[in-house]
């Protein structure tokens, strides 16, 4: 898989919304060495859905997971895709990162492109308080159905601690 070709194709498709890219190249193997690649691109939120659509049109991607990162004023979302599975050394990880300002935590769903993204999107809704626009099912997945806390938000730690204390008391554990 030619790394530069992938980046160029995204640059052409996204234009100014393509903000930055980087490649991490690693050598693996003791007897026979080979090279594996982790690719990262950052895109503007306005073109995020287009970026995933472009990925789906060029490859058959697998979404491993979406990770989030509370950076203070923004929440960064890293969509960890892998592409090229099916053959030895054929696969690279391909992470698409986008920044959401805390004042407007919204992102379009990608379940229309890849239905399997729903689990991870629902997790981001409950744990970061992000509004995933267009997701078919936005109920809490891992947290209790009526929970309104967002445990991975650093600015909401006090509320989380209060709610956890309440739940522990409610369960009668008195710890």
């Amino acid at each position, binding site marked *: 898989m030619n790394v530069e070709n992938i980046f160029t194709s995204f640059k052409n498709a996204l234009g100014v919304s393509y903000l930055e890219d980087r490649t991490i190249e690693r050598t693996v193997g*003791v007897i026979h060495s080979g090279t594996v690649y982790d690719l990262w691109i950052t895109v503007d939120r306005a073109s995020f859905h287009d970026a995933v659509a472009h990925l789906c049109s060029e490859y058959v991607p697998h*979404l491993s997971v979406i990770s*989030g990162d509370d950076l203070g004023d923004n929440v960064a979302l890293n969509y960890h895709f892998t592409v090229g599975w099916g053959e*030895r050394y054929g696969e690279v990880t391909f992470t698409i990162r986008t920044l959401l300002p805390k004042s407007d935590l919204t992102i379009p769903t990608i379940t229309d492109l890849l239905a*399997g993204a729903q689990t991870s999107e629902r997790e981001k809704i409950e744990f970061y308080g992000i509004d995933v626009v267009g997701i078919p099912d936005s109920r809490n*997945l891992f947290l209790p159905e009526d929970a309104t806390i967002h*445990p991975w938000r650093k600015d909401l730690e006090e509320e989380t601690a209060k709610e956890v204390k309440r739940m522990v008391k409610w369960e009668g554990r008195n710890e």
Partner: protein
Amino acid sequence: MNNDSINLKVGQCAATTYSVPVGPVHPALKEPIRFTFNLDGERIVGVDIKPGFAHRGIEYMGMRRNLIQALYLSERICGICSISHPLAFTQAVENAAGIEVPPRAQYIRTIIGELERVHSHLLWAGVGAHELGFDTLLHLTWNVREKSMDLLEELTGNRVDYAIPIFSGVRRDVPAEKAHLAYEALDYYKGLLQQMIDAFLHDKSVEMRTRNVGALSYDLAVDLCAVGPTARASGVKKDVRQDMPYLAYADMEVKAITPEDFGTEPHGDVYDNIIVRLLEVKQSIEIIEFCLENLPSGELMSIPKVPALLATLKKASGEGLGRHEAPRGEVIHYVRLEEGIEEPAVWKVKAPTYSNLMAWVPKFLGDEIADVPIIAASIDPCMCCMDRVHMVDTVGNETTRMKEELVRLSREKTRRICG
């Protein structure tokens, strides 16, 4: 089953359908989960899945501990694949911090990882046999599994939570004087493998209960991002060990196993799940043998002193991904390190069942309530026990079904179709 009409949410119940919650404590899982089935007679027409009853906030806790403490925590994410998470986590941190792992340590990590696959797949096969009512096969399978547990105990000191990987290497060696124990176990499995294949795959009753039950098409497996044997049973040739080699897997030709390797077309059903897992036991034995024969000499850790290791990690900054093909599929960890702090700034864990959650829906649809235990078990190899099943009809009448009753239903079906 019409794959196009998959209903990912519980829809409106028609007058003749029943809504049946199963769980949160569930028949075929080590962890509690709640299924709500919509039934038309015996047939499943809708399913809603609610996990989270065992969510312990491990990532949250890990981000408040130093990296070595978080490593021990990662080992406790799962009791069955208790090396898979540390393998992915150590690789993520090593990639972020640029730490080298000595060749011998890479091979030892691989050996323990593959031994885990052997015992996990055999555990799963035994659970599957039990769900179908073949308890003799359960006892045979779990007896056979003990050999791998004994070997793990000999090599690591523990039957679970082996505490082998640490950042920059491994904590314990596989000494030459213990190698004969490993070879003995491998010979034992080689002799038994055909017997296991005969007992599971050439048995008419097993075939009748598992063929075309819990089927997942190739396209859906890809679209729903399924991983591991669940995806490979549908013919998706996806295996991290093959696609993006790491550790000792880079030195050998590991191939993703699908039912085609057994000479059959993939259906993605429970029978194909058995094929893939049994053939992977054989593959794991070959991998362990390769590692033992080619075990490089040398050090176990590139930074052997723990205070020096902690200091190196504290100075590191950057982000890294670590992946491992666990018995149930891809495990991935994302880590971001910040200079000056001992804790990971971000730690995200993804376990295989997380990816396979969505794939459960099409597997259940169109099948019968008596197939629930075996389809539920087809994704995840661990068996706890189910507390109860509530049956609620549309006018609000409620009955409670105990675990024994659901297992009885499954076994009655076996007897019925075997005449």
